[in-house]
């Protein structure tokens, strides 16, 4: 039997679907994910934004702590979800799986990547990966006060031009730059601003392999927002992604016009 009607009701038992990931609870207009390396003051940013409107628990089926909270910006209600701190999104570790699955399948309206301004280069490794999954990225270059103390200066405009996404220097523990961050989150989540990420060019062989897969993926799932990333994960042998392709979970994207097409 197995017709597609049963799939669209979200019967997937292989992996948590979007509803399970975002966990309906509270009233909100948009979902914002908070990603970043460990030790970048991510939780300070989280606490600053949500204040006491937060609660903690575990990710479904995992012993990994999950924190979520709420905030309001320009009369719009936001739900903020703190992802596990990771250096990358490409390995099999549980933390990275949770973070990359949420950014892809949870379809946050905006993903804030908290970076350590004192070691920005390392944080950019993660930013570049997240930019492969979603366009709706805001880079928060946190600990800017520490960077200044170490005589490291950031040129936000130049970084924005290079990356194609907003870059906001902040010091969450002092509250510096946070209004600016909120403003950018609001613009990106509501669609008032559409970042156009400039992605890293991979080596020719990988690019041509991705080039072969992307048209097939788009033919199969017309509105797939991140065919490049899906192709990269498939090439890396990500079983979760293969499953999502087989089960029709990825095809869900074509039914949701809210997420605009990521241009490749």
């Amino acid at each position, binding site marked *: 039997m*197995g*017709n*597609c009607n049963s799939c669209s009701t979200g019967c997937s038992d292989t992996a948590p679907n979007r509803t399970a990931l975002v966990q309906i609870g509270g009233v909100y207009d948009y979902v914002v994910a908070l990603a970043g390396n*460990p*030790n970048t003051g991510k939780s*300070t940013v989280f*606490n600053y934004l949500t204040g006491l409107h937060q609660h*903690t628990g575990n990710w479904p089926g995992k*012993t*990994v*702590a999950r924190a979520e909270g709420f905030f309001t910006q320009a009369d719009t209600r936001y739900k903020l979800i703190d992802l596990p701190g990771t250096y*990358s999104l*490409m390995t099999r*570790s549980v933390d990275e799986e949770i973070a990359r699955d949420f950014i892809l399948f949870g379809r946050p309206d905006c993903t804030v990547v908290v970076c350590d301004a*004192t070691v*920005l*280069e*390392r944080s*950019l*490794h993660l*930013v*570049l*990966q997240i930019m492969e999954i979603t366009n709706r990225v805001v880079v928060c270059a946190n*600990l800017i006060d*520490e960077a200044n*103390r*170490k*005589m*490291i*200066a*950031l*040129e*936000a405009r*130049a*970084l924005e031009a*290079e*990356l194609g996404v907003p*870059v906001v220097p902040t010091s969450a*523990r002092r509250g510096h730059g946070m209004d600016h961050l909120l403003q950018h989150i609001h613009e990106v989540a509501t669609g008032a601003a559409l970042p156009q990420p400039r992605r*890293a*060019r*991979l*080596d020719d*062989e*990988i690019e041509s*392999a991705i080039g*072969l*897969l992307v048209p*097939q*993926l788009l033919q*199969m799932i017309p509105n797939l927002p991140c065919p490049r990333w899906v192709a*990269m994960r*498939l*090439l*890396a*042998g990500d079983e979760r992604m293969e499953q999502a*392709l*087989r089960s*029709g979970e990825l*095809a869900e994207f074509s039914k949701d016009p809210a997420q605009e097409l990521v241009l490749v």
Partner: protein
Amino acid sequence: MNESSNVADKLLNDVRLLRQKLGSDLHDRLAGALYHRAAQVSAVGVHVTGRPAVDWDLGADKILTSRWLGFPIMIFALMAILWLTIQGANVPSGLLADFFFWLEGHLETGMKAIGSPWWLTGFLVNGVYRGLAWVISVMLPPMAIFFPIFTFLEDIGYLPRVSFNLDRLFRWCGANGKQSLTMGMGFGCNAAGVTSCRIIDSPRERLIAILTNNFMLCNGRWPTIILLATVFVAASFNPAWSGIVATATVVAVTLIGVAVTFAMSKFLSSTVLKGEPSHFFLELPPYRKPNLLRIFHRSLIDRTIYVLGRACVTAAPAGAVIWLLGNINAGDQSLMAYAISWLNPIGQFLGMDGVILLAYIVAIPANEIIVPTMIMAYMAGTRMTELDDMGELATLFHNNGWTFTTAICMMLFSLLHYPCATTTWTIYRETGSVKWTIWSNLMPLILAVVVCASVAQLSRWLN
């Protein structure tokens, strides 16, 4: 559906072919390309404008991890935390206890006024309420001091340096340097310590850390150790020195716990949890100025209140059980008296007595009610009692046949015995395994029995 699954199969087939062609170093090439790009971007937007005159971070690191000072500083920090916790908690603990017992009197009067029968008043007020009052007044002040200090060290970035210093020792026992962080957490509360073992990636090493966390004295046990150290050890010294002797005794018990942790980790990793030590990498983040507001929020809301809440949930029924044991009579004796005479031979064999053992059994849900249960049994009272004066307490213990050996054995038993109910439940939740949960209780129990029996035997020989 069929058509789309064919398309998927074809696509996945193409993927497999491409993957073979690309070879196995895809991750290397992706990481290389991404870092290449990251370096390009940061070359454009990040400018190093100079070198700070003094590199404070490096200077601090050279001292805190230095060959000669690294370990002394850690031990000094431990002593300082314990001393502050012990000294600082005294006064607020007393005030809280006074308040709760004042309130108890009024509750009792109130209950009588509304015509509640004696057994209901006794059960609710002298049982449940008293259990709760004890736990809160004994646990809250030390936790409210310990957790902020610990969070402070975490916040400024000292704890990763402790891991860095100790990793070599953990490697020797086939465990992970990050275990030291979970042990530090365990000093506050073993349940919190067990949860914090999540930071260890390797399942084998995480299990070692979980199973040995119990050997870290927790807030429920500090008061017992401190009390015994003060009444039995420090009392035999010049009063001027007693504060320092008491602290030193507590630190010695703590360090025995650390040594047992290493030994048991080694034992586990060379028997049931055999395996290659996993790779260790640890980032030493820059030192940061602490944010006091955040420290208070994290340590008081996330840790203190959370741990206290769980302790209360288990202490209330324990208080009820203690009251019932003391007040239900079978024949001419209370259930408690029966249990004590039955447990006494085992207790004597372990260098203690029946009362102490009964207290440990009743106090499985929460260690902090051990001393009050003991006092109540010795005084043959029918409710948990507190004696305010240390001298009175010493007399009570001596009259009940306590010796120096009894105190030592009880301290060791307290250090080694099984984890409390909350911790056991946390272990089950974190491991998802009944087998390891049983291990986590049996292993320390066997160790505690062997150690206490040996000490008792040794002292018999020496006398």
